[in-house]
């Protein structure tokens, strides 16, 4: 990381301390300290009120013996496995479809991005009404065919898909903008040269467009992977984790352990399991990037 002027100049040290102080203090108090504390908590039996006792790895074994925890682990993986590819395909597809030269492209991009900046609570509430018996889907289907739609949020087998569908609708606009920016940056002469050489649209997509935006695809995949493991608000508000615990995610489990059961120890241990899981898949992502990401364009 080369930075201009590495030779310390007299008098700037004190000024630097002044300028950096708010961030350094804030970060120490509100990030570094809680992280250390979380790690300590994970090894303690730490109820919100009452005596704490050292538990060692006890919290971990408690968690893995807990059928609900194991289920939330699976639910989270299922969410990620469904959400990630859907999000990427839709966002990439639309970014390519809204071609760089079409009229009204900025308005379209803003429309698809809109749910990203709308409070998740508002998005989730309207989707409750859409999924509800008598709501938008059921009402339309029943009027058209006389058949009622399933109770999407209340039926096993539907609930997770309903949560995923709403989440994709809400979230893909972000990646779409990432891809659009990358597509806009592809030099026109490269596309023209390919066309002159007789490359069809499919060949152009796979031989030129996708390789040229592969760094963006890597960025989007990694970020979406990380955030989708942390999914909380959508299932919390759409289904409350139900039916049963069919849509309860790891982050919801952490929240419930912490703030309904008030067991900070197991909550912290569960949070660290989630974090390690995220670190693991991110590491795999980074290890695999050499095979498909091209940085020299």
């Amino acid at each position, binding site marked *: 990381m080369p930075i201009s002027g590495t030779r310390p100049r007299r008098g700037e040290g004190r*000024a630097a301390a002044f300028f950096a102080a708010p961030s350094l203090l804030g970060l120490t108090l*509100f990030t570094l300290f809680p*992280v250390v504390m979380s790690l300590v908590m994970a090894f303690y039996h730490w109820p919100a009120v009452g005596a704490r006792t050292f538990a060692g790895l006890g919290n971990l074994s408690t968690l893995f013996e807990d059928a609900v925890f194991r289920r939330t682990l699976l639910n989270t993986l299922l969410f990620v496995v469904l959400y990630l590819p859907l999000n990427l395909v839709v966002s990439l597809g639309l970014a390519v479809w809204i071609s760089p030269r079409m009229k009204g492209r900025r308005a379209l991009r803003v429309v698809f991005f809109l*749910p990203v900046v709308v409070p998740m609570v*508002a998005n989730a*509430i309207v989707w409750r009404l859409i999924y509800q018996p*008598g709501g938008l889907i059921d009402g339309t289907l029943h009027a058209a065919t006389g058949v009622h739609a399933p109770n999407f949020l209340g039926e096993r087998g539907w609930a997770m898909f309903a949560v995923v569908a709403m989440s994709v609708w809400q*979230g893909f606009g972000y990646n779409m903008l990432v891809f659009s920016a990358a597509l806009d940056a592809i030099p026109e002469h490269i596309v023209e040269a390919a066309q002159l050489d007789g490359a069809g649209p499919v060949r152009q997509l796979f031989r030129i467009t996708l390789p040229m935006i592969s760094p963006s695809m890597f960025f989007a995949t990694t970020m979406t992977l990380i955030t989708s493991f942390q999914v909380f608000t959508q299932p919390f508000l759409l289904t409350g984790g139900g039916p049963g615990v069919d849509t309860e995610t790891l982050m919801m489990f952490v929240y419930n352990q912490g703030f309904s059961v008030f067991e900070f120890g197991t909550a912290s241990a569960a949070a*660290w399991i989630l974090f390690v899981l995220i670190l693991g898949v991110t590491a795999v992502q980074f290890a695999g990037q050499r095979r498909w990401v091209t940085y020299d364009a």
Partner: protein
Amino acid sequence: MPSRWRVVVSHAALYLVAAVFVAPLVYMLATSLKPAAEVFGSPPRLFGSELRWANYREAFTFLPFGRFVLNGIVVATIGTLVVLLASSMSAYAFAKLRWRGRDGVFLVFLATLMIPQEILVVPMFTLMRWLGWVDSYQALIFPWAFTAFGTFLLRQYFRTIPDEINDSARIDGAGLVRVFTHIMLPLARPALAVLAVFTFINYWNSFLWPLIIINSVDQKATVPLGLQLFFGQQGTQWNLVMAASVISMAPTTLLLLVLQKHLIRGIATGGLGGR
């Protein structure tokens, strides 16, 4: 099919997809203007028997929704100012000042970017109890105001400003604080704008942390938390809930429409926002 026609069909189909995509938001708006008895119905209709604007008035009177909006504006505004001030100051120290250990400290800063919220919420709550901040406005504002992200973003921007500008101002007798406030900050205005927009939106939309830390919801809730309360109490009054939802999305939607260029640039240059 001639290629001209193919383009027309492709664009028409694209607009159709966009229309289906915004349907939920249109449905929200439509429901917010319907009489309570006409929310459900088969087939669903865009308009009820009247456009009931009174829903919006009632959304504000049934629960202290005006209070939630005010809380949200105050928390998001102060939070954004704190973020801008703290991160621009430290970014200046990291980008332009020379001091021992600078690069090492900066690496620690960057490393904290990896720490996710799920690790932090439980110990943060305990910390709030120790500070006596549970159920307070400062707890809504400060705990998340010191992420390394803003510092990183602004440091990258400050580094593009030539050192000569700084040095000549110093030779002219300007102090470091003056250089910071009169040269660096004005020059960094585009980056500050991007950071401000995203920070404001994040504060305004934040749900999990207010849910954890706020107990007296009637007084201190921000909009998403208040909306959830509204929903819980008034699950049957869909039209009022939808009116409140429309109000909740108004500020950030407005920001998006007015500042779309800044927002899009922020995303293109370095993964802001999202979630």
